[in-house]
């Protein structure tokens, strides 16, 4: 968390390197990488997911690796094609909620006073109003489709980011380097974009990841309810049809199990990536781990101590 500014490329390279060295982050990166590749190229490889290829509710076989749906479509094809829109909405909503949250949270934290009071009230109200019912009520009035889903997820999800970013901005606001920038006569815009935001990069990245996890889960939930475009192929509508065709009560586990596993794997991968980032950007966590490994190597039992990080020290 030193105030030094790396060039963007050097920063990215450092992160990529750190991700490689952190086991959890690396595992997360592999999982996410796999699903991104699947989303980009998968639909080119598999057959048309809407094509009726066989008898309904056939268990997995050599011909249809994950069986068929209640309508007789190939489950694998639906799963692969669904990946694309689910990830796309997930990442775009993740980015948007952080953007909106930053816009409102940083403004509130930086300007303070009455602006802060009003904006804080706004996001606190949105935090306390339950998100899913709100999203459902709005989505029900709009034409079904990915845009609607994305829109309501942003409405229901931005407040949390605003709250966290406001707190973080407040913390930076009183730092010396910001005071120096104010004295130097820099404009508010420049102070926010060049002095404060770069210092929150790791937080912003972790919020985008967290926002994506939220978006994918909530999107699947909304579509499961039938609020998505039920003729489109996404993970959520796959589950919607599985439930609608009473897959459960006929024992057709293959129509819902793979989709849920994919949702969970993506969520898990993103969370792992995030906790890895935590350690990369928080030198104290990293040192703690190194110190413990050192003690164990010396054959001693690690206690409860927390190593103190001296400026400029680098053990990892």
């Amino acid at each position, binding site marked *: 968390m030193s105030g030094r500014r790396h060039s963007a490329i050097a920063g990215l390279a450092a992160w990529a390197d750190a991700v490689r060295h952190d086991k959890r982050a690396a595992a997360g990166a592999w999982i996410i990488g796999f699903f991104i590749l699947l989303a980009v190229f998968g639909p080119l490889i598999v057959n048309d997911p809407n094509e009726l290829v066989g008898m309904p509710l056939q268990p997995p076989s050599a011909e249809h690796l994950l069986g068929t749906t209640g309508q007789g479509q190939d489950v694998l094809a639906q799963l692969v094609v669904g990946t694309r829109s689910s990830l796309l909405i997930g990442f775009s909503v993740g980015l948007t909620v952080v953007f909106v949250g930053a816009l409102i949270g940083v403004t509130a934290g930086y300007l303070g006073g009455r602006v802060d009071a009003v904006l804080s*009230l706004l996001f606190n109200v949105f935090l306390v109003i339950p998100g899913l019912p709100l999203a459902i*009520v709005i989505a029900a009035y709009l034409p079904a489709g990915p845009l609607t889903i994305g829109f309501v997820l942003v409405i229901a999800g931005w407040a949390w980011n605003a709250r966290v970013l406001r707190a973080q901005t407040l913390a930076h606001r009183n730092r010396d380097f910001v005071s120096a920038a104010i004295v130097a006569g820099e404009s508010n815009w420049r102070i926010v974009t060049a002095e404060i935001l770069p210092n929150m990069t790791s937080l912003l990245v972790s919020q985008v990841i967290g926002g994506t996890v939220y978006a994918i889960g909530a999107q699947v939930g909304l579509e499961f*309810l039938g609020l998505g475009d039920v003729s489109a192929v996404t993970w959520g509508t796959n*589950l919607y049809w599985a*439930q609608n065709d009473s897959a*459960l009560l006929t024992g057709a586990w293959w129509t819902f199990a793979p989709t*849920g596993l994919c949702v*969970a794997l993506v*969520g898990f991968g993103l969370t792992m990536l995030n906790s890895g980032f935590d350690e990369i950007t928080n030198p104290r966590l990293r040192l703690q781990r190194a110190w413990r490994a050192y003690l164990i190597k010396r054959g001693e039992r690690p206690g409860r101590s927390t190593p103190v990080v001296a400026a400029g020290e680098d053990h990892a």
Partner: protein
Amino acid sequence: MRYLLKRIGFYLLAAWVALTLNFFLPRLMPGDPATALFARFKGTLGPEALEALRETFGLTDAPLIIQYFTYLGHVLQGDLGISVAYYPSPVLDVISSGLVWTILLAGTAVIVSFIIGSLLGVAAAWWRFGRIDTIMPPLSALLGAFPYFWLAMVALYIFGFQLGWFPLGHAYGDGVTPGFNFAFIADVVRHAFLPVGTVVIATIGGWLLTMRNTMVSVLGMDYVNLARAKGLSPTRVALRYAARNALLPSVTGFGMSLGFVLGGSLLTEIVFSYPGQGYLLVQAVRSQDYALMQGIFLIITFAVLGANFLVDLVQLWLDPRIREATS
């Protein structure tokens, strides 16, 4: 006292925002929900129903501001309109028929999950790098990644369909008579076990992690070291000294996550055909019953606001700093 008044003011404001959103939503959106509905139910609804529907939405020719106050007046009298899906029952009646089940399901799940999760968090922090601390956080991160309702589907498939240990749905069986008797209560518990269990499993990780992380930093504090040095029993130090203070962030989080957990529990209800708000909500979505949908949104919001107020009271009781700062 001032603190409580401020909180009450805030919740009233939030309730007003929800009410106002509810009022403007149908008016901002394209089309007229009443006419659209009437067209869908052509033949089954009489012409007086169209009037009733318009009345429901408050879509009269009066100026917007008058409509708004009429609407607020209706809501305050408990008039949320007529349900289309359960025509001609009033929305409020439909909602209250399911409210007790939702509160039972979500309430039990949230409390059980909070208690078990927080205790596990205490254990993880106390035996740092021990077995609980290494296994539970990643495991709960993995479980937390599954959509609630998907876990519910899997649980229903395995324990309901394959093993037959639990019933496949509904809140109680046909064979029992609702009332305060053992057979009925046992049946309700049997029906609630799987839905509650899946929500608990999906949410427990959050409590565990929050508690563990605050607990770790509290355990490093001087007063905890002093308590240890005095030779107090480990249980006493862990629970009475450390956990009590480490609980504060979890309690704050409890209030904020209520809405989220409730959302997940609504979806779980659908999987188990559990007759609560989630099940009603799906009926409302399927039959485009806007009045019911909006009524459910309002009631759930009010419930969450009320629960948050209770959390504030608990916090006031736990944290003397809030009491002192405002007295």
